[in-house]
């Protein structure tokens, strides 16, 4: 980056952006993996993780064939690529999650089928009880909730910190919002 990394570096960066989706497509369609409801989100996580392999190959290609002529330049360029890749993976994970879990997307898709939707039909098409049951099921499949007798307790706590962070930000942006 510091020397003249040329347009190849821009090209490598753009290719790095496409890796998470391509890996996900490969796992789902090519290998038939992660298709079960409880594995869908894990599938994206593993796609991003295994995408580090093609990313490493791209980095190697760039560093050995085209790369910067200083070691510092190569290291910083790799750091930039890794940062870009992690962000692309995070954005892709959220995009997939929206397609799977977002209430707004579900409502839009239901309305787009006919162009209009009677508001009174919403409880039938998208029952309030289902919204919560689906989420309890999903969180249990992810190991976030664990059933102990007839009660749910916290499982692996991986989402506890993000949950606290999200609600802290909500508190900062919307101090009067209902929590």
């Amino acid at each position, binding site marked *: 980056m510091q020397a003249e990394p040329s347009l190849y570096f821009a090209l490598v960066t753009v290719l790095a952006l496409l890796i998470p989706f391509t890996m996900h497509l490969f796992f789902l369609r090519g290998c038939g993996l992660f298709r079960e409801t409880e594995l869908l989100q894990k599938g994206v996580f593993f796609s991003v993780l295994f995408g580090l392999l093609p990313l490493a190959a791209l980095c190697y290609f760039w560093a050995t064939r085209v790369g910067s002529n200083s070691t510092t330049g190569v290291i910083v360029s790799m750091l*930039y690529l890794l940062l870009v890749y992690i962000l692309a993976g995070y954005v892709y994970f959220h995009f997939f999650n929206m397609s799977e879990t977002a209430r707004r997307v579900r409502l839009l898709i239901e309305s787009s089928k006919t*162009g209009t939707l009677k508001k009174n039909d919403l409880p039938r098409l998208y029952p309030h009880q*289902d919204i919560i049951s689906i989420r309890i099921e999903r969180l249990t499949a992810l190991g976030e909730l664990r059933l102990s007798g007839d009660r749910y307790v916290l499982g692996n706590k991986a989402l506890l910190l993000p949950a606290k962070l999200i609600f802290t930000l909500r508190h900062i942006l919307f101090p009067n919002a209902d929590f």
Partner: protein
Amino acid sequence: MGAGSRHRRTLLFSLRIIFLGIGLFLVAFASHIAVWRIVKPSKQMLWLTIVFIVLPIGGWLIFSAVAGPHSEDGAGWTATPLDTFLILLLNLLLSAAYIMSYPPIQAGCPSLKIILAVNDSRAEGMTAEAIHRIFSEDILVSERLEDMVNDGLIFVKRDIAGDDLVSLKNETIVISWKGYLIAQMFALYRRILNLPLGKG
């Protein structure tokens, strides 16, 4: 100047693209908090796009145009088109990551709410019924419809024919072209992945 000090300077100089990309995002984030606390915009998605995408890109391009000529004497640093691309790409990705995380911040994601409620119940835990009781139908669906109306994704038409003149309850949701495009984009994406539509 020692070799160590020179090396540190070279490293910092090389890292400038990362620092500038992150810096642009942080400025946009601070503006976002200020705008939301002061104005509280109703069309939130439009404002997020303005604050996180339009302003940093516009600001950077103006800054480059103004600062560029002064750097020709060697006193400053002029960003090459590639530097500009890399800085703006990093800023765009950080912004996209935040914007994708924004809906749960705005709407109070039910899944995360369940996690916090179960965490507060400690070892005792919560029954499924108790978890269901946390949410009212208004919060789960009606408020989301309101957000979608504000963002121009749908319109709500009130049917004032017949009995509905009295009840005014029979409202019809009409999808806008913007909402239709988004719905079709997600439907196409799920078809490409060969997955059924998400349950929401």
